[in-house]
């Protein structure tokens, strides 16, 4: 029920199927451009230093090489973990919510969003793995049976829920992403020869485009999408329970699960936009990622930003209204006017105020403005995680303990290392995997007219139109 009159054309330039294939696969069939090599080198160096030096150093010497201390036992590692998980939300949320709501404009973006999810979740997954004191005993956390160790894991612990939630989410996202790529792999196979052909043949599971395959393909995606949608909600809700199940003022909040999910979608969508701006510029895919696309996402971001702002206000209100001196200290004395007012107010500016510029159509359609604002949102969301992890722990119940937290060079390099990992992943993705879902684009290519809706939908829409 896509309406061209409302949304405009999804793919400009009256593309044929062949044009689409050529346009999308150009990024991998042509020689890699110089900028690709340069940025690949930069990200690779970041990854190499981060994962090749900072992470092994942490494992060899102990968590003491980080800035954490007795008072702030969690630091950058957890901030970055939550931040990456949040970004990792985008793909699935984007792809699946829009799939379920039949927003067909998703087609040119969902592949990149899903790829981003996988890399972000991989980056996120690194942190819990290296953040424990004894990584070599990490397997204790998996409930592989009381018979072997005579002891179960603690099912009360939100960290254990995390393990399940993230593992499930990563698996589901990866499968969803991969299955969506099957027809595209087949397309690449058909256009290539030799070893590449063999590889892509294997990767496409021998896809030949039979009608029955298409049906199963669509069913599989629908089922996985249905499964993944609650997971999207669940995974960040569960991550939020790491904090909200805690006792610290500033952590112990019932608002956290929805607040985290919304925040994750916020940062994820922003990251998608940031990347799509770059991809569109780099590969001149203006016909596929149109201004209308950005306009649509910007509207969503504006809406989510309003939710974020309301959540901040609610937190402050509850802190005051509860008359709980510990809680009000964290929010009023600490965040608003205290030691941590700088990260707090920057967070509010980046997350609640800056995206409000999207109320202006000009800004929604200005790529530079979009790029800056979405980068701002991601900085703001990082600050939000910082504000959640550090200040409540640094200044909690007994003031005698209070101590500030400062990251070390190792903390910073681990973070840069994960950025490197993410960057390398994304760059490899655009070189080796069709970065837009060609098969889905082709479904949209010729749809410049209203599709025939099912009877029920037809009547519903008709009623709606009549009412107006």
């Amino acid at each position: 029920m896509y309406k061209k009159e409302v949304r405009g054309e999804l793919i400009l330039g009256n593309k044929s199927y062949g044009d689409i294939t050529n346009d999308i696969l150009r990024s991998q069939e042509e020689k890699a451009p110089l900028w690709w090599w340069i940025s690949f080198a930069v990200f690779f160096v970041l990854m190499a230093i981060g994962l090749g030096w900072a992470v092994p150093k942490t494992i060899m010497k102990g968590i003491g090489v980080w800035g954490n201390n007795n008072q702030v036992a969690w630091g950058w590692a957890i901030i970055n973990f939550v931040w990456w998980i949040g970004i990792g939300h985008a793909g699935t949320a984007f792809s699946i919510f829009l799939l379920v709501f039949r927003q067909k404009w998703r087609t040119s973006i969902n592949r990149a969003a899903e790829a981003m999810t996988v890399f972000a979740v991989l980056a996120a997954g690194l942190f819990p793995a290296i953040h424990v004191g004894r990584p070599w005993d990490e397997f204790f956390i998996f409930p592989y049976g009381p018979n072997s160790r005579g002891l179960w894991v603690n099912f009360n612990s939100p960290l254990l829920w995390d393990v399940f939630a993230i593992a499930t989410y990563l698996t589901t996202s990866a499968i969803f992403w991969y299955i969506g790529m099957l027809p595209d792999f087949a397309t690449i196979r058909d256009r290539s020869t030799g070893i590449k052909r063999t590889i892509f043949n294997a990767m496409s599971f021998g896809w030949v485009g039979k009608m029955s395959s298409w049906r199963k393909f669509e069913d599989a995606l629908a089922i996985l999408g249905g499964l993944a949608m609650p997971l999207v909600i669940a995974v960040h809700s569960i991550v939020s329970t790491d904090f909200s199940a805690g006792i610290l003022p500033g952590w112990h909040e019932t608002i956290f699960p929805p607040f985290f999910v919304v925040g994750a979608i916020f940062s994820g969508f922003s990251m998608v936009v940031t990347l799509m701006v770059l991809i569109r510029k780099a590969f001149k895919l203006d016909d596929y990622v149109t201004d209308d696309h950005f306009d649509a996402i910007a509207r969503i971001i504006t809406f989510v930003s309003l939710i974020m702002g309301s959540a901040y206000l609610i937190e402050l209100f509850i802190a005051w209204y509860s008359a709980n001196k510990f809680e009000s200290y964290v929010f009023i004395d600490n965040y608003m006017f205290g030691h941590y007012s700088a990260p707090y107010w920057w967070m509010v500016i980046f997350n609640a105020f800056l995206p409000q510029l999207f109320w202006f159509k000009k800004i929604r359609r200005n790529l530079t403005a979009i790029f800056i604002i979405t980068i701002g949102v991601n900085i703001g969301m990082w600050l939000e995680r910082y504000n959640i992890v550090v200040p409540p722990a640094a200044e909690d119940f007994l003031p005698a303990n209070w101590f500030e937290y400062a990251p070390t060079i190792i903390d910073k390099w681990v973070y840069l290392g994960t950025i490197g990992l993410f960057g390398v992943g994304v760059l490899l993705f655009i070189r080796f995997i069709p970065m837009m879902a060609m098969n889905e684009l082709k479904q949209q290519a010729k749809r410049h007219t209203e599709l025939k809706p099912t009877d029920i939908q037809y009547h519903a829409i008709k009623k709606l139109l009549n009412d107006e």
Partner: protein
Amino acid sequence: MKKYWRSLEELESVQKNEAIEPSIEFPTDGLSKDEIKNKYVSNRRDFLKLLGFSTAYAVAATSCQQPVRKAIPFLQRPADITPGVANHYATTLVTPDDYASVVVKVRDGRPIKIEGNKLSKITQGGTNARIQAAVLDLYDTARLQYPVKNGKETSWDKVDSEITKQLTDIAAKGQKIVIMSGTILSPSTKKLLEEFKAKYPTAEVVYLDPVSYSAMIDANEATFGKAGIPYYRFDKAKVIVGFNADFLGTWLSPVQFTADYAKTRDLTNGQTEISRHYQFETLMSLTGSNADYRQYIKPAQEKKLLIKLHNALAAKLGGTPVKELNCSYKIDKLVADLVANKGKSLVVSGTNDKSIQILVNAINNMLGNYGTTIDFTRETLLKQGRDSKLHEAFGAIKDGKVGAVIFYHANPVYVCPKGDKKAAIIKKVPLSIALTDKIDETAKHVNYVLPDNNFLESWSDAEPVTGMYSLGQPTINKLWNTRQAQESFMKWAGIEGGFYDYMKKYWMENILNRNTQTVEKANPKDDNKETAQETPAESQGIIDFTSGWTKALQDGVYEVEVTGEAPQFNASYLTENEAKITEFKKPKGLQLALYEKIGIGSGLMANNPWLQEMPDPITKATWDNYVTVAPKTAEEKGWKQEDVVKVKAGDVEVELPVLIQPGQDLTTIGIALGYGRTAAGPVADQVGGANAAIFITAKDGNRIFNGIPVEVTQTGKTYPLAQTQTHDTMEGRAEDIARETTLKEWQKDKHAGNHKHVFFKDKLEHVNLYKEGYHPEDYPGHHWGLAIDYNKCTGCSACIIACQVENNIAIVGKEQVRRRRNMHWLRIDRYYSTVENELYSDVKNNPEVFHQPVMCQHCDNAPCENVCPVAATPHTNEGLNSMAYNRCIGTRYCMNNCPYKVRRFNWFNFVEGGDYNYLFNDEVKRMVLNPDVVVRQRGVVEKCTLCVQRIQEGKLKAKTEGRELRDGEIEVACEQACPSGAIVFGDTNMADARIIKLFQDERSYGLLEELKTLPSVVYMTKVRNKDEEHKTEA
């Protein structure tokens, strides 16, 4: 014949009538043609090659030697050693800083823990941080391990023959032999030195106390005709007034005074009155931090204030006033209190100034305190040094009249000013000997350094207070080629035998034969069975020396009745010398006050990492000394914390960082003694700071430690300080954290200050959505708990070290403390609060202090337990919050979720980790580890276990003896160490346990109880003895 085929290839070969080669059944990749041809049959050469290679490889691989750990069982087990079961021996610790009668826990022949001896009337089972830490000094590898002559190892026989010959020559020539020693408490050693003097008539013993009490002795000599320090009875005082006397921390006999003081502050024994404590002091001391009324004063004002007090009392009580000096302090309240409590008060001053001490004596005399709170029939013998004699001795050495000088645990080059000049004159003495434990600053300059045994390797006795003896026995064989100093003196004096025989003989002749002895009942309320017991001598009617000796040795203490008159105060001395006593010179500019830190003292134990890392109870700083400056002064001068300043007095100067310390005088800066050791060992070398003893000046022949005029300039440099607490106020949370009230309010309402607890108890018990909470049925047997009484706790930090020793807690070093990664399981939070007070002239700069010991609260509804993903910290059915180190993977979630922040994480491998060479990385020092407690690996969380190993030991003991556990039988380490009895451990399920009474006391509350963590530790509201309404703004 019918032929079956499986594949076309086979069919082909079948048709060709070829047999299928069995060889191609196996892959041939990577093999040479020869090998294929040979069909993989290895020949003899291959076999030999392979054999040779594998042997060489095996040899190479196994040649990486594994460290050899010896665990050799006893071939013949000694009668009194049961592996795994500790023996306890009573012994005596005497250093120039401390005295304590102690019980040493010995496991498998190794002393591992020092505990207070409850039978001692002086220390009363208490200890301080230094006494707790002293066990590590036994295993200090920086100790000298053999006799040294002029820097080279030598033998004892050689040493003895050479020294005896030289001493004889020197005595024959009539040259002096100076034996410079810390105060000797041992009566038998004194006797021995008498005999030594008999052999060498020119010998002379001079006492060098690192911190001088000489003026007190002088003053008492002048006013009482008795050159000594009386026996103070703080427990009998109702009003205690301290002038620059840190009697709870460092002054004279702090363990004894803390125990006595705590008795006067106790509200758990039915008593409804507590003593009132006034403190006038220059710097913020531990004692001052416990005072009800505290006022900072300039060092010079102490005399003015004492004169004003003297004259005010004289006016009321009838006495001769002396010349009044202008003094602005309001003391009406103090005077009224003192007059009202005549004979039940005590005024002490820690200033080493004869005039001041004479005034203090006169005041105490006017108040009738002699005979009640001050017992001068006994003397406190802990400090006997006379500075005038010391000065004479150095004069004689300088003039070349001294032929031999023997330093017996005396380190004048370090503890005296002008140390380098002293070193130079010591070098000129023909024969110089140091009987000490290491080549210290003085021993570096002498001919012979003869290592003395550690006290845990020695026989010893002591008489810290007249008639109160204690005995010391070795608890381990000598670790190295050392010799007890007394035996050296015996050798040189030509006395045969060992010191044990000598001492025993002395006791037989002089102490245990006094058949008139009875044990004085110091406190009639004290129903301690042991002290009330008759001595063997009494019960048997005859002197049975052996049983008496054995009993004394087993008890560690022995007491005889003291007969004799107390000397009378000679009031005329004051009037006769009025002009001199009231002489006053107005000081100009900044003054310096030197002080001792609770942990470091005079710096004797500078190589002890436990003490270096112990946060100072007031400043909470570790590993350094610094210049303490009042906030207002710092603001005026523009100094910030950690700015390095140069302190200059005459030709001496030091550069030290500034530490801002509220509560001290605005024109005075403070520097701690005991730092800047240059020859104390590798740990001391890592400690920052500078020796402040260089600033000591003299007045009336006595060393003066405060009121030294100095110039202070900023250097522009900064120097990092490591404090374990950097936030000093309670942010308006006093009623949630540290509850307090005043005595008057408490007398009116026992719940005063603790109404919030009543609210929680009555209301919140029933407002509960969930079933969480305390369910008695979960704890069918024991349920352990701890009660901490703020009224008794002084913050002295003995418990911190006791906990560290008992539980093998790591030392992390300054840098890690700075990053707030100290490992102490028990910490003492120190809060400042501003209080309006009629005595205080300056509210902002004169805070009240609150000490709060915090350890794991063993919550019955513990927030840490449910968040651990691997269930490494479960709750036991005895109410303990336990830690399974082997299960812990170190997510640190529990640390975040602990509202008390008592959990500690092993950030690095502090055990056997290369960077942390303090305690666990030394084979010898590791001997101090408690084998009952696991040493934690890096990456695991640890915390107070309520000494679960002691609980287990106590339970097993009761079980093997087939009886129920008795209350008080199990003592946790902090409780044992506490000199004031502020910590009580017990079973809250035991009907008549002491702890039940304390848990039910109206003053008791749980820390942050509104979180419903249901802690098993209760705190008892602090009751300050102040008159005015309680108004605290924390």
